[in-house]
């Protein structure tokens, strides 16, 4: 397995690894359809980690699926998804199949049903390898599977196990190994540590960090756990109601959020040792909006503590909120709306 | 929907039998004047049988017996099957074990010989037919129901109810039963055709009640009295068609019901 020299700092002059422009994902339904993603722009440089945070209904999983065209048939996907310059959304099926897993791969949640329960894990990883390399001998595949398992911290002999014989953390490692099978440049991790204990989560995060350093991977890390993202990612984007509502360097966004939703989300993860969080559970009233019935103006305004009159009627966009930061709020420093 | 339409038509016919055809026509003594094996063109819409009885009358009245046996025997089978299935699934352990062994015992015994023996012992009558078919058909629903109860038992709301202090009876009736009833209902509609065919089989073999003209009985009579050789198609084709249509109708309704009541569909609405 080749080891690419990982750039010390993600360079932004080089063409980005992934470039998403005006992505819309709409699920079919009687009537107008359900808009899960409503215009998202994203850039990911080679070797960079981007965190995508949001709760149920915000569209983050739909976004992940759209990047490799893995959404159910009939889903309407518009916009551009440029992977290494090629538009995934306009690729021919043959090219798409070739690109899937070799250029970009997805790490799913390590739940029991992410892996085929009646197939040995070694075979499942081997399947990915065989799909993308013609005429590879069984011995070679076996050897590679062993290498991948060792890479993710599992003994090679575990290839003979069935998924139910592995713990949650081990299954997650298998899924990471599976994603790396064809040496992709981009890893999309969709809630990879959500169901895991905090210690196992730390192990998996450290593993991802190691792998990223070794192979110069670009990673998009999707989760609802904002605190994890602040740890692992260089940049952070927060999604709400199908749009990105805040974006910027992760430590800045986490420590000094510009958008009220980010502030509320950050507040939901108490910092141990900080007396401000003792006996003060902080949450938002109401629930994340149903994509079919979005509020007018800024979709967050019904739950927002900082909402003002104009919020219900202004079409909000990502406006500058600091150097290399943006927020979709009328209170953002760069917002043209007077408040 | 087609199934439902057919069923409604047949049920209407069965219920309206006294209005549509004169019962007297069933008694052979009243029909000595009629020509025997008359074809439909000669006498009545469906001709007559070997004893001069109007086939149409028998067809209409026969529907009653077929439907009655079908529904009654199914009711017995499903009732026993549900009780056994729910108990076996809910309690597990040795109670479940014993119940399942009994169920399997009944399953293993071939239906026909058992039915024949029982019918021979008990004598031919509609009630006995219902009884025989009922007690030989219950194992199948029992197994299906037990399987689903096993999964339902592990659901968290059952635990919650137990935490509230519910007794086993409460759990079985208020939580397990409502959630297993779609399965029971779908299974019922699929069991009825089996039962009707069983009845037809038994009657055809001569174990039915000769004094009551069910469709199976008609087929039996037809063959016994040589309707085939006489080419009196109007005698055996209608009952055969009738059975087939009703069986088809129930099956259609049953599969439709299963789709409608599938819990996955319900969950999607969330």
């Amino acid at each position: 397995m080749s080891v690419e020299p990982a750039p010390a700092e993600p360079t932004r002059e080089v063409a980005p690894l992934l470039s998403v422009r005006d992505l819309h994902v709409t699920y079919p339904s009687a009537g107008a359809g359900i808009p899960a993603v409503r215009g998202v722009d994203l850039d990911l440089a080679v070797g960079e980690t981007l965190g995508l945070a949001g709760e149920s209904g915000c569209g983050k999983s739909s976004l992940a699926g759209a990047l490799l065209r893995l959404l159910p048939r009939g889903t309407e996907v518009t916009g551009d998804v440029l992977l290494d310059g090629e538009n995934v959304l306009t690729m021919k099926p043959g090219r798409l199949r070739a690109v899937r897993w070799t250029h970009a791969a997805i790490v799913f949640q390590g739940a029991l049903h992410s892996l085929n329960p009646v197939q040995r894990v070694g075979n499942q990883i081997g399947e990915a390898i065989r799909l993308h390399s013609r005429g590879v001998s069984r011995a070679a595949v076996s050897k590679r599977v062993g290498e991948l398992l060792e890479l993710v911290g599992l003994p090679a002999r575990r290839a003979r196990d069935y998924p139910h014989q592995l713990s949650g953390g081990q299954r997650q490692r298998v899924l990471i190994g599976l994603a790396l099978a064809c040496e992709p440049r981009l890893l999309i991790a969709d809630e990879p540590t959500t169901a895991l204990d905090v210690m196992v989560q730390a192990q998996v995060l450290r593993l991802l960090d190691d792998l990223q350093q070794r192979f110069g991977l670009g990673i998009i890390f999707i989760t609802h756990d904002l605190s994890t993202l602040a740890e692992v990612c260089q940049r952070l984007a927060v999604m709400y109601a199908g749009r990105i509502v805040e974006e910027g360097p992760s430590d800045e966004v986490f420590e000094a959020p510009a958008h009220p939703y980010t502030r509320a989300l950050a507040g939901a993860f108490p910092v141990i040792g900080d007396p401000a969080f003792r006996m003060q559970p902080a949450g938002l009233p109401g629930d994340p909006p149903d994509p079919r019935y979005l509020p007018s103006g800024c979709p967050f305004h019904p739950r927002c503590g900082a909402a003002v009159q104009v919020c219900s009627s202004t079409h909000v966009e990502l406006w500058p909120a600091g150097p290399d930061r943006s927020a979709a709020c009328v209170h953002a420093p760069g917002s043209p709306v007077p408040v | 929907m087609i199934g439902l339409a057919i069923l409604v038509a047949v049920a209407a016919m069965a219920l309206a039998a006294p209005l549509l055809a004169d019962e007297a026509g069933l008694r052979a003594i009243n029909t000595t004047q009629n020509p025997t094996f008359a074809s439909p063109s000669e006498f009545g819409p469906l001709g007559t049988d070997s004893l001069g009885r109007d086939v149409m009358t028998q067809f209409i009245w026969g529907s009653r017996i077929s439907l009655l046996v079908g529904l009654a025997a199914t009711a017995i089978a499903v009732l026993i099957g549900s009780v056994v299935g729910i108990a076996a699934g809910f309690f597990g352990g040795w109670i479940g074990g014993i119940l399942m062994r009994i169920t399997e015992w009944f399953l293993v015994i071939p239906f026909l010989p058992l039915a024949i023996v029982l019918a021979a012992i008990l004598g031919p009558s509609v009630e006995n037919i219902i009884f025989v078919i009922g007690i030989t058909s219950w194992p199948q629903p029992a197994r299906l129901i037990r399987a689903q109860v096993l999964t339902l038992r592990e659901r968290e709301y059952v635990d919650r109810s137990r935490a509230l202090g519910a007794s086993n009876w409460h759990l079985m009736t208020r939580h397990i039963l409502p959630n297993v009833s779609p399965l029971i209902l779908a299974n019922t509609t699929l069991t009825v055709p089996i039962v009707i065919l069983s009845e037809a089989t038994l009657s055809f073999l001569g174990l039915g009640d000769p004094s009551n003209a069910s469709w199976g009985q008609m087929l039996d009579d037809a063959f016994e009295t040589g309707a085939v050789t006489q080419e009196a198609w109007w005698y055996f084709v209608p009952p055969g068609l009738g059975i087939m249509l009703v069986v088809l109708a129930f099956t259609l309704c049953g599969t439709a019901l299963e789709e409608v009541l599938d819990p996955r569909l319900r969950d999607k609405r969330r």
Partner: protein
Amino acid sequence: MTGAPLLEIRDLRVEYPARHGVARAVDGVNFEMRSGEIVALVGESGCGKTTLARTIVGLQRPAEGEVRFRGKPLGHDRRSLRDHRRAAQLIFQDPTGALNARQTIYEAVAEGVRIQQIPGDEEALVADALARAGLRPPERFFTRYPYEVSGGQRQRVVIAGAMVLNPSLLVADEPVSSLDASVRGEILALMLRLVRETEVGMLVVTHDLGLAWNVADRVAVMYLGRIVEEGGTEDLLTAPRHPYTRALLSVVPEAEEVERQILTGEAPDPTRIPSGCRFHPRCPLVESGEAARLGIEERCRSEDPLFVPACHAVAA
């Protein structure tokens, strides 16, 4: 907080048969709790915290040891269990699974009232419980089904269903982990309010240390069936003494200054509990040689620390 403890647990052992051998899910737990107190029982999966919670509310029978509620031992005959259930209620992790999808919200809350034959106007009791759980106006929710309301509201229904019995003890098993992050605060605030208003004792079982910091008065840390450390939240979470607690706190995402102590492997399964101190195979003190330097390594491998904090290094 009144004098006598609400809940006392002595030498509790709960076992269940597993594929190979017997799993000692709870292996000698001693614990006490008072009314009006919120205690967080923290630990990772497999530590036995859920089994302990279920045993406390009577859903599971202990193999050994005693659960005393308001001074009286918990009987396991039908009558005692039923009475106990009125006093100790469980809040489940997944509100969607915990509610029968075919029952209306009214029925779900009224169920407890009917089973326990609580005197009074049923409708008024249900309305009151729903209102106290934050579902207002309660009448609007009577005819709704669980799938028609949001996750947070469903959890409120479960809480209402438990509170309608006026329990003295509420055991909440991961009450907010399946809810969206922004919704959690509201539910936790509700639980805090209920405790302050009714003096009910609350035991929150969770793997989330941040949650413990947020709402708990005391914390008990479980590992492989034992409580290895216990104490006031502020003390325990800022100055932990047991190596396991220290390791857990070091890997919490928000912990910045502390060096990460990522333990290797996962907790061994409860059918094969290590000899001596059950934590010694993964203990950073043993691995780094610190235990040897303190001269206690032999004790860690052979002597089971039956005191709390369950660590020979601390006791030394």
